[in-house]
């Protein structure tokens, strides 16, 4: 029973990070109609931005690392939108897919060229401390990760639901032509959406670097594949749906790790996700028409 609760909590921690990355995919896909394969690598660049800043100003720790992660990823998102996504948007979906895939490869290998292909140690941003919460025990880093992810998810929800820009983004997601004809500057909203999603991914990335104590040029592959699958399984229409699926995925992984073997966790998770898609090809909670 304790193992069950413990693993559910562990799953919640990592699932919340999948959720943040998955929402970036979902925003890019629903608002821009773009499969943004460079998004996980923007996450990776955010992770290294935080690493560099934390090493440069060691005293400031978590705060400066988060700020740098957000700034690095946000700036890269802006650059990606201006140079690749924006100019290609509106063409065939494969065109932007190839464009962002190209950027992804450049970012991964560019970073590998800079820091080497192997994982590097992440600076200590949060003390290594264990905290008992009833029958479960979490590390302070896990709690920080969960707290930050929750904050980011709330920000997405507030953006989409309650801001004027978020309303415009929803209008574009459902009917891009009508939104444009009623005064929405579609190009501008698309830009804001990508920068917003990138910034959040940067914050999540710093938190994950701190959680596992390492960063790698290829970390995006792992998070990207999982987050992308979460978006497909949930559908891109409801952000709560994406979050629920991402957290579910984290929990399945943790349970398989706890009760079977950690080498089985990815296989088990993907079997479940594929099974869901088999039954609901448009996602569990529906998708915008493309």
């Amino acid at each position: 029973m304790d193992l069950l609760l413990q693993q559910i909590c562990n799953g919640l921690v990592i699932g919340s990070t999948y959720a943040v990355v998955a929402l970036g995919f979902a925003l890019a896909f629903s608002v821009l109609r773009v499969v943004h394969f460079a998004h996980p690598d923007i996450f990776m660049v955010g992770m290294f931005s935080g690493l560099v800043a934390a090493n440069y100003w060691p005293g400031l720790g978590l705060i400066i690392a988060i700020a740098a992660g957000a700034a690095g990823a946000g700036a890269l998102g802006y650059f990606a939108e201006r140079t690749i996504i924006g100019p290609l948007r509106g063409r065939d979906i494969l065109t932007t897919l190839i464009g962002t895939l190209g950027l992804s490869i450049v970012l991964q290998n560019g970073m590998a060229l800079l820091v080497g292909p192997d994982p590097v140690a992440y600076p200590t941003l949060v003390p290594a401390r264990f905290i008992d919460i009833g029958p479960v025990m979490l590390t302070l880093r896990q709690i920080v990760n969960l707290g930050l992810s929750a904050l980011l998810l709330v920000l997405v929800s507030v953006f989409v639901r309650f801001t004027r820009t978020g309303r415009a983004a929803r209008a574009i997601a459902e009917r891009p032509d009508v939104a444009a004809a009623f005064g929405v500057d579609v190009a501008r909203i698309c830009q804001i959406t990508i920068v917003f999603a990138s910034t959040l991914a940067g914050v999540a990335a710093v938190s994950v670097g701190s959680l596992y104590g390492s960063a790698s040029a290829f970390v995006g592959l792992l998070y990207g594949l999982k987050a992308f699958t979460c978006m497909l399984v949930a559908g891109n229409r409801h952000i709560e749906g994406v979050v629920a699926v991402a957290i579910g995925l984290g929990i399945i992984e943790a349970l398989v790790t706890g009760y079977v073997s950690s080498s089985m966790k990815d296989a088990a998770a993907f079997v479940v996700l594929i099974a869901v898609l088999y039954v609901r090809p448009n996602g569990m909670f529906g998708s915008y028409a493309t």
Partner: protein
Amino acid sequence: MTALLEIEDLALSYGAVPAVDGVSLAIEPGELRVILGANGAGKTTIIKAILGLKRPRRGTIRYDGEHDLAALKPHQIHALGIAWVPEGRQLWHTMTVFDNLRMGAFQSKDHAAVARRIEEMFVRFPRLRERRDQLAGSLSGGEQQMVAIARALVSGPRLLLMDEPSLGLAPIVVRDVFALAREINDMGIAILMVEQNARQALKVADAAYLLETGHIVDQGPADEIARRDSVKAVFLGGAA
């Protein structure tokens, strides 16, 4: 009087297929003109060209004597006072009625004016006030058409483009929609309407154009067009 909208020698195509070829038309401030034509004649394509949603291959679209709409983006065109009632309503089904109306004046900085116009719409269409917080997708066809028209009016446009407002509505609602178009026009808003329902449209329009496979084949005052054989030919086929 200078024309509010003046289209000259407009040509558009979808890939290699010409949709509109050499269309010229004009509408003066406060007028209600209708473009009649069968399915596939190119009516919606003309509307999309005016809105900036489809780039012309040839020709000019002048607005208010000075603006070349073909060089502007859709949101800039909307800011000039051109609003749209799209074919099949095209509401944001996942938004509430109120949010649909708000989105109609997305660019407006004058929030008081927008709030006032939304209130006017609720007075004009009491049903919409009842449905204010419901998702637009849950409304009936007639109610959705009211939202589509109200959404177009909250920005206070000078020119309203109505694309087949009678499409898919019950006959009794169709009559209301045409009466409403007349009413809006009487408020001084120019209307360019595109329709297949020639009989009803000609009753409310000042002038009409007949469009056949991308060409204007006849034009004139609505009451004259209503008596000509060309209008039958356009819908029944055969030479005009």
